[in-house]
Structure formats: C-alpha cells, structure tokens
C-alpha cells in the first residue's frame, strides 16, 4: 500500500503536466475548429455551387480518413514536401481542421433546420440576405448546434490522445513514458483512464450548464452523435 502511494506520488505530477497539455491542445483545436467550421458551414448552405462542392471535398476528406493518419501525414509527411510544423502546431492544425469539418457539418444541419419562414420574414422587413443570416438565422442555428458541439468538445478531449504519437507529452504521452519507466502498464493506464473520466465529466457538466443558459423556449434540435 505504501508502495502504491509512493508510486502515485511519483506518477501524478507527470500526469497533471500531461493534463495541462491535453487541455491546451483540445482547447486550441476546438477554437480553430469553430473558426474554420463556422464559415465552412455557412458556405455549405448559402455559398455558390462551386464553393459548396469545394467545401464538401474538405469535409469528406477529414471525415473520411482516420485522424491518426492525418496527423502523421501533417507531422511526418509534409516536411518531405518542404512544410515543417512544430509538433504543437501540427497537432493544433490537424485536430483543428478535423474538428472544423465535423463542426461545419453540424452547423449545416442546424442551419438547414431553421425554418425557411425565418428567412422570408427577415427579408420581408427589409433585411438583406446577409443581414438576415447574421441577425436571424445564425443566432438560432448556433443555439441549435450547441448540443452537437458539446459532443464534439468531448470527442476532441478524447481524440487528443493520439498526439503522443508525434512525441507530444500529453496525458497519454506521459502514460506511455511512465509505463516504460515503471513495470506497471495496467495501473498506469487505469489511472490515466480515471483522469480522462474526470476531465470528460467536468466538461460534460460545464457544457450542459452552458446549454441550459443559452436555451430558448421552443428552440430545440439534436443531430445524431458523431465523433472527430
């Protein structure tokens, strides 16, 4: 028992360091995902046909291939083509673009579920199409998409675990190093699982609270669950 406490004492600080990195990667990637997903989602619904098509290729590509290979491609593959990102940038970019594709699709669903009458009514009081999108459609769609984005945030938190494979010492990376150092892989990974459980649990409840606060009577829609 004493042994185990000492073991924990040694392991937990490293894992906490890893947790900070995990949160950082998940946070930045999600944000990048929003920055990308928002215009892409809008373009997918309101853009000209050629744009819809191009953006469709982007979302299909990122949704159709494994995140891990995307990450390897960006990190180890692109330098061969003369493009070198440091490992954090590579992680942000890959996870961000991946998440952007999913977020765009969720937003698209939400935009399309805002009833057509809303646009007509907005135009009827003299708003331009762009004004109507900004003032009427998007505020509704963003609220509608919130549950899907909560799922996405949780998926993201979990999918960051692949970045250990490009030598980022995130929670999973720390677990890998620790399990090489100690002779206790099962224990290490179980502890790490608890870490993720807590992280995901907290995120879940925070996002639920946000959803509740942003909720408006009569505005509901939930697209099927998806993952990054």
């Amino acid at each position, binding site marked *: 028992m004493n042994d185990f406490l000492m073991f924990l004492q040694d392991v937990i600080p490293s894992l906490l360091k890893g947790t900070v990195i995990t949160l950082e990667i998940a946070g930045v990637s999600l944000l990048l995902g929003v920055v990308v997903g928002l215009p892409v989602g809008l373009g997918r619904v309101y853009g000209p046909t050629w744009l819809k098509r191009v953006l469709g290729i982007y979302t299909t590509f990122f949704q159709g291939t494994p995140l891990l290979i995307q990450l390897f491609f960006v990190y180890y593959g692109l330098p061969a083509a003369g493009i070198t990102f440091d490992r954090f940038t590579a992680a942000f970019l890959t996870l961000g673009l991946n998440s952007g594709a999913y977020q765009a699709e969720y937003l698209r669903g939400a935009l399309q579920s805002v009833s057509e009458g*809303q646009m*007509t009514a907005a*135009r*009827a*009081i003299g*708003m331009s199409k762009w004004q109507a999108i900004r003032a*009427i459609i998007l*505020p509704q769609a963003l609220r509608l998409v919130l549950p899907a984005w909560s799922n996405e945030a949780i998926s993201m938190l979990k999918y960051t675990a692949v970045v250990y494979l490009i030598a980022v010492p995130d929670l999973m990376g720390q677990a890998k190093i620790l399990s090489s150092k100690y002779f206790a892989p099962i224990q290490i990974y179980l502890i790490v699982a608890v870490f993720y459980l807590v992280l995901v649990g907290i995120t879940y409840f925070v996002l639920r609270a946000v959803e509740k606060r942003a909720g*408006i*009577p009569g505005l509901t829609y939930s697209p099927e669950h998806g993952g990054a």
Partner: protein
Amino acid sequence: MTNSEAAKTQPIVRLEDIYKAFGVTEVLKGVSLSLMPQEVVVLVGPSGTGKSTLLRCVNLLSRPDKGRIWLEELEITAPGVNEDKVRQRVGMVFQEFNLFTHLTALENVMIGMTKVLKMDKRAAHAKALEELERVGLANRADHYPAQLSGGQKQRVAIARALGMDPHVMLFDEPTSALDPELTGEVLAVMQKLAFEGMTMMVVSHEMGFAREVADRVVFMEGGYIVEAGPPEQMFDHPQVDRTRVSQ
C-alpha cells in the same frame, strides 16, 4: 371598380399586367390592380389561384416575370431598385407568423428598427413597446414566441411589421393557422388598423371581416381577377357565380 376614386388621388400601389410562372405552372396571367391610400382590399378565391403570389409580388418576395409595379411614385420593378428599401415600406404578415424564435416579442419588433432602419437602441425600445401596446401585447414583451399563443404570435408579427412604419400592410391569411377562438383577437387588431387609416391588402377567407372592413373585395381565379367590388355587392349580388365558392 374604383375609377372615380383613382382620379382623385394617386394610388399607393399599382400593379400593371402582372405575369408570373413557376416552371411550367403559370400562376398569374396578367393581373392589374390599384390600391388607394387608406383603402382596405380583401383578396379572395380558391386555393392555388395565385393570391399569395400576387401579394408577394408587391414587396418583391416574388419577382413578376412580366408587368410593372409602382409603390407610390416609384416603379419598383424597374432595374436597379433596392429591394430591401422597398420591403421596408411594405409590411407583411404571414399565415405561419414566422416570428424570430430566438428573440422575445419586444426584440422581434425591435430588430428591424435597429438593424435595418439603424435606429438607436433606446428609441427602438420605446417605439417597439408602443407597437406592442397597439396590438395589446405590451405585457408580453419579454416572452419568447414559444411562450405565446397563436393569436398573440400573430399580433406580435403585426407589431413587427408596423414597427417599420410601412406605407402598406400585406396580410396573407393571417388567421387561418389559428383556432377560431384566437382568430378574433387578430381580426380585432386588423380592424383597428383599418380604422386608423392603414392601407391594407389582405388575403383572407374571413367573410365577416371582409364584409365589415373591406372597401373592396377582389375575387381571383385561375390567375385572373374575375370580379371586384364593394363587399355588399360581391357577397349579396355576385356577378360571377363562383364568388360563392370561397364562402
């Protein structure tokens, strides 16, 4: 027809030989109609006849294929006319209310004032409250659409249109999505507007309303105006037998 009146003043809306087709379906086949200031015209006719389409032409939500439309002195079908500006002058109320779901009643009325008319927030707030008062809903200002009854929703929709200070109001079957009990409150508001001198073009099957409020009833069928006249004449001595269809 109201030729004698038309001579006195300028019509506020003038439709001239309007044609409109969707794909192969010809919906409007040459409709001409004028609306005088403060006049209330009720459009009736069987379903699919083009009443809604005609109404939507007046604020360019539909663009006529042929024909010309004047709004006061301006020919709005002329190239280069800013549609958004036109729509600010023409209020429209839909069958399905189409309130902005994410905004309270008050915000629904305000948003056009602030975003389109660029009024300042304080002024818009005051004016929006006034408009809600006018439709008898000042006490529901902070309710979201989902928290309002159908009749209340429709009255907010009317207030929203009025908030833009329109010169004409268009109503497309504003009570047909309502239970009979709720219909009354909306008709009362419309009646009040008419008495205040608002120019109105109304698609409605509410014959009671037409009879009491309309200056003129226009009967459409198959893409044409087949009869028009004061309500007494239209309902009591129809020249075309079909007027009765819509009763």
